[in-house]
């Protein structure tokens, strides 16, 4: 295990006191330390939102990008250098709303990318509008009479869409969450960790207490993550009992990178760049004779 201080940087954290993001930040650092991944071996990506500031608070390589687009940028980076661990941090609006099309498509591509979605079921940074994961009836400044939409279920969508690792964590239990993130990093392929994350300012429904009364751990309930239909059932559970843990995991599936011919000789970014030799150049010209 590496020293947790290795991941500290001098940047002052600007989240609200009590924000669920602190638990996620601690869990991420703890997972890296336990897996002995050095700061230069991991590449973080994030979009826009409170939680997307997380990479700024970790001493590691990072690219903080634009709203909704972290997933395709992360996939491009993974294809350019598959030696690096890639961890993508999105919010719920960021990852499932504006970035929804990218979410659907990364599921079926299976790059070796970890996707941590901080799901607080509300838009925090823009000060309290409803989110794709807000529950029906949720009252916000843009849904004064309550949301009339069904909440987006990232877990069923991910399993259905072809994801090979689907987990849910709770930021109020960072130790458990760190274990999930470690499993996600160790998983070969796309790994979603949806994190129930209380927003202490704008979400007075889905609070720490709300979750503490309801969450139970799948690994203590005899759930087999390899069982896809059982996973679909657990993924639909919501209300009095909310499962956390690894919901679904398929092992042995090839990653996207594994299947690309040009990557067999190693990462693209590490190739020496030089002009083509005379024979290759002539062959290319001859195609047009």
């Amino acid at each position, binding site marked *: 295990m590496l020293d947790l201080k290795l991941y500290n*940087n001098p*940047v002052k954290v600007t989240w609200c006191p009590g924000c669920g993001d602190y638990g996620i930040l601690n869990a991420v650092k703890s997972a890296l330390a336990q897996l002995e991944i*050095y*700061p*230069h*071996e991991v*590449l973080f*990506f994030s979009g*826009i939102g409170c939680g997307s*500031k997380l*990479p*700024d608070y970790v*001493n*590691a*390589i*990072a*690219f*903080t*990008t*634009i709203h909704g*687009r972290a997933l*395709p*940028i*992360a*996939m*491009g*980076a*993974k*294809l*350019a*250098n598959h*030696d*690096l661990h890639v961890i993508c941090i999105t919010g719920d609006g960021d990852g499932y709303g504006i970035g929804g*099309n*990218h979410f*659907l*498509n990364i599921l079926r591509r299976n790059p070796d990318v970890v996707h941590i979605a901080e799901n607080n079921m509300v838009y925090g940074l823009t000060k309290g509008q409803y989110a794709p994961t807000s529950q029906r009836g949720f009252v916000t400044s843009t849904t004064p009479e309550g949301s009339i939409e069904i909440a987006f279920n990232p877990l069923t969508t991910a399993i259905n869409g072809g994801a090979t690792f689907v987990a849910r964590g709770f930021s109020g239990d960072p130790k458990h969450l760190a274990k999930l993130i470690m499993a996600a990093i160790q998983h070969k392929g796309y790994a979603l960790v949806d994190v129930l994350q209380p927003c202490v300012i704008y979400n007075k429904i889905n609070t720490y207490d709300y979750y503490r009364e309801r969450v139970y751990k799948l690994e203590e309930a005899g759930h087999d993550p390899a069982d896809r239909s059982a996973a679909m059932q657990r993924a639909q559970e919501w209300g009095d009992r909310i499962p956390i843990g690894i919901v679904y995991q398929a092992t042995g599936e090839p990653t996207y990178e594994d299947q*690309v*011919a*040009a*990557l067999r*000789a190693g990462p*693209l*970014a*590490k*190739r020496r*760049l*030089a*002009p*083509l*030799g*005379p024979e*290759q*150049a002539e062959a*290319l*010209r*001859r195609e*047009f*004779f």
Partner: protein
Amino acid sequence: MTLRLAGEAGQGVESGGAGFAQALSHGGLWLHTYTEYMSRIRGGLNFFQIRVSDHPLWSHTEGTNILVAFSPEAVRDYGPHIVPGGALLHDEGLKFDHDAVARRGTQLFPMPLTKIAQEVGGNKIMMNTAGLGALAGIIEYPFEFVADVIKKNFKRKGDAVVEGNLKVAAEGYRIAQERYAASFDWKVSPLDARPHRMLINGNQALSVGAIAAGCRFMSGYPMTPASSILEFMASHARKYDIVVKQTEDEIAAICMAIGAGNAGARAMTATSGGGFSLMVEALGLAGMAEVPVVIVEAQRPGPSTGMPTKTEQGDLLFALFASQGEFPRIVLAPGTQEECFHAAARAFNLAEKWQCPVIVMTDFYLTTSMRTLLPSEFPIEHVTIDRGELLTSEQLDRLAGPYLRYKDTPSGISPRALPGHPKAVHQACSDEHDEYGHFEDEDAANRLKMAGKRMRKFRNIVEDLRAPTIYGPERAEVTLMGWGSSYGAMREAVDLLNARGVRANMLHFVDLWPFPEAKAAPLIEAARQLVAVEGNQTGQFAHLVRAMTGRRADRLVLRWDGRPLSPEYILATLEEAKVHA
């Protein structure tokens, strides 16, 4: 002379035309091809035309000497383009108004094409082969060149198919030559010198340039007329070590390229105006985070879906100013196929040196038109690869202080470290940031410093950009000024004007942005009568030149009907302006 094949999509107009072009090229002739097709998979009306000469050609011209029509619509729409004394070659069963065509002075050359295909080849589908054979017979181009191309192009379909097509073409050739060769004035003969020449279109040339420059990653979403770049790169990916990714949309396309570019692979994407519209926000990300990426914008007429399979130069000012805020970008607009190659190769160097997005602008006409060129125009093995201030692993090992990704330097360029070195743990950032790359989106002094650094790059980039090329005599009465694909039409218009005793020259811009003011302004100032020639409705480049130099174009020659500028169109518009003046 110009030969045009026209018919419905699916009748082999484009493949047959391209084959015939190869046959002419192998005879040492110089070609320019131009194609138009409708936005549908079957039916409609397409044409493929070949202008052929014993000297190099730069453009298509208006007017057809012989039209091979496979459908009544082809006669109706393109019959009027046939020059006086020219001919219409058609199947004897084709129904159209014969009198109307004959009244225009066009010769009618009916041929039993379907019959030959069925009786000699055993398959009606070989009708276009019969037509190509007949075409060669009428212009008395030696059959052996046609036969060689048939052998080459049908080889993978088996000997029976090759044999059938050869017989059909020979029979078409024999009958047409016997009946019509004597009454057709234009002939094509192979030249004595037949060096290997390349027959290549703009998208192919650009793709070859990208491969030569070491492009390692391409992501894209299919959109006419850019799709064939994605297809070309995909078909060459294995051989040239490239990852090619078709994405869910153009947003993902540019984002993946940005991710790959930031991680150290030379990366590009290609699209048309509609897709580029979707890419705009991420374009700004590349500007702010200082990520090298190459974006090809193959224009077609807008707005919105516009005319998907026609041509226009209507996106210039959009490309120059797309995305919120101010950041450095480079815009290049090659004018010819060989310039597509060089512009693509340069784009990757410029993107890495200046750590910014580079946009290469083409259009439908340039992307689909082929020209014959000497292989020496494509010096693939001699392309320079310059990655700019990219820190090597050894340089980073020796680094004394902390690594600053966005170090404020006199040039504005911050030496770049690729992700993965222990001494260069860093963050790239879309928010305003400090030299480390950490969020600093409040502080005014930091804003001035970092925005100043980025704009310093923009002011320095211009030193790497080139002056417009000049063609034609000095001290001309008329100077044509244009950018991008209008090069060929302008150049031939200049030749025609000088032949008519009008002293004319031209200024053609490939490097558009940052505007090479110091190099271009004196040339623009020197023009006595400045005529802006553009494929758009409002004279966008003329606006730009006026904004950058204060010089107003004296006249505009604009075309925005979806068709490319031609030498005749330029001359006719100049004449018209004289009449109305």
